[in-house]
């Protein structure tokens, strides 16, 4: 079972072995430990800042972090641009 939530980070609980390495990895304390299930859970998923530190530390590959930053706090000069314009045709230059 995966906890999707509205956040870049998710945990596949079938793979999580409860080692709690992610609790040390995360600078912003996204992860908690559920003593009943003996597995990690997303305590504060909204605080994921897409740093990927947990990905390298999770020994079972249970954690996924999406590449896309969807935070309203990030400002893009291309917010109103057609997405097709964000890739340049290599034959054009």
């Amino acid at each position, binding site marked *: 079972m995966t906890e999707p939530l509205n956040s870049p980070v998710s945990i596949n609980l079938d793979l999580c072995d409860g080692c709690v390495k992610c609790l040390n990895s995360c600078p912003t304390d996204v992860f908690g430990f559920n003593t009943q299930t003996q597995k990690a859970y997303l305590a504060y998923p909204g605080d994921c800042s897409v740093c990927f530190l947990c990905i390298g530390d999770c020994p079972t590959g249970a954690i996924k972090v999406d*590449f896309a*930053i969807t935070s309203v706090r990030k400002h893009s000069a291309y917010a109103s641009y057609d997405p097709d*314009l*964000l890739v340049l045709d290599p034959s054009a230059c």
Partner: protein
Amino acid sequence: MDQIDADVLIIGGGFGGIWAALRAAEVVDNVVLLEKAYVSRSGASTISGGVTTCPLDDDDLSKWVAEFVTKGGYMCDQDWTAQLLEGQRERVKQLAGWGVPISRNDKGEIRRFASRGMIEVRCMQYSPKKAMEELRKQVIARGVRIIDRICVTDLLTTDGEYPTKGAVCGAFGFNTRSGECLAVRAKQTILATGAMSMKGQHQIDNVVCDGVVMAYRAGARLVDLEFSFGGTFSLLMSKYTFGSYNVAIAHGARLINAEGERFMAKYDPVRYERGELARVVAAFAKEMIDGRGPVYVDMRNVDQSYWDDLKVVQQSKGASILLSDRIPDPKVSPLAIEPTWGLWNGGRSGLMIDLKCRSSLPGLLAAGVAAKITATGTHASAGVPTAFSMTSGYCAGNAAAELALSMQKPRMPDDLVDRLAERVRAPLGRATGKINADRLHDSLTKLESSVVETMPLSAPRLRKMIEQTDEVAMTADRVGAADVHDLVKLHEARNIAECAKLVYLSALDRTESREQFYREDFPETDDEEWFCWHGLTSTAGGPVFDRQSIPFERFPLQPPGKRPRHLSPIAAIMRGSFDPTNYD
């Protein structure tokens, strides 16, 4: 409430803090290091691009010093420049000796590349995460007591006053999970809390402005806060983290506009994308304003060693968008890229420190980019923030330990710790509502926008920004925290609001433009008034500014003389009149 004593207390466990701890523990027994997250998984040191200045034994460092001083507009402490480079030569040897992975050529030599904006100065690439893991092991082996997950909120002062007329004697904070308070009384305290930043901008959301603000409240003198605006080309296709721009351009990546033109040829026909970063960012903004955007990073000619190193970094770090299948192949298609621009001091501002890393307050030293890197002046260097963090850490640890050796345990008012605990935990007792810490951080980041809007400053805009920071700070003093995690974020929001206000006040006070600092209403560089370090100190009567002359009588390199007022490089770029022959 837990209360402990230390000879040397270090706040922050990135490069600055760890190197301070390593050195201090060689001199005194009782060294305590407090870290808001977990040492080796926190701070810019851990998730940086892994670029640092790399002087080796055969290099003539006098040439490097000269390059830093000229590129830094002569606004450097040249003694610090020399100390930085000599110290970094030792730090590189130590990292290599511990087996930290460093990018090497076929002969096994460190692979070096020209630092951005430079001809002589060389950088190297290393694995930052592995470096931090090794450093954690080293400090533990030396008997340093690391206490992770402590959010430090205040410095302790011997008279219990803020600003103090006495000395700093430790720090107060709380555990970010249990909420339990901790006071560390210390003979000497080293502030190593990293950059000034806002959440949501740099993928290091626990690094904000905590340390600089608590030092300011205690009465430490800050300098050049208006130079806290900064950023780099970090956002790919409007929503992905690019990785290290410095490394990519060193290996041949180029910036081109929508017409396929390598536009940096107009601004820096020698260094192109490797030119002074603020000028490259301004050139980006100019291309956008003139309708030649998007700007693309063209990686079709990047050499193979870049991609090889990227694979190594990816294995250590977890992932890289450039090697993923989420985007078109960057080896084939130029992809839209853009810089951030906002509160990101990178060592261009912060606590003023001397060669021993002592602040203006007795008992308080600073290391890393919470301090102003006077070694490099106005130059925003690739590699120097990490190098300075390591060497200032070492120097601060050494000086603090030497001072502590001859000191008794400091005294402070009996009620100080209880007073702080009551104030710090007060939001937990207040009702929570729609306005919470998260919304305050949202409001703060609205002070910033895309670089096109945020780079030009003016008095009306700065006054409005100051009003907005006041509003956030006042709200933060009223709202409740739902739990301890929320309490951390609430203190962070309060600190960012206060820090941003100080930055904007400093920007308002500086009536000129200079290198990366650009005021539309004062577009010229004014050496008569502003060729100095711009100090800011908290007093009972409010913030007080000062201007400190740069002591050239001490230094080997003399400036060519004050130039008459002239358009700053960014002002000239924005007005379309930039002539590269007029600027270094």
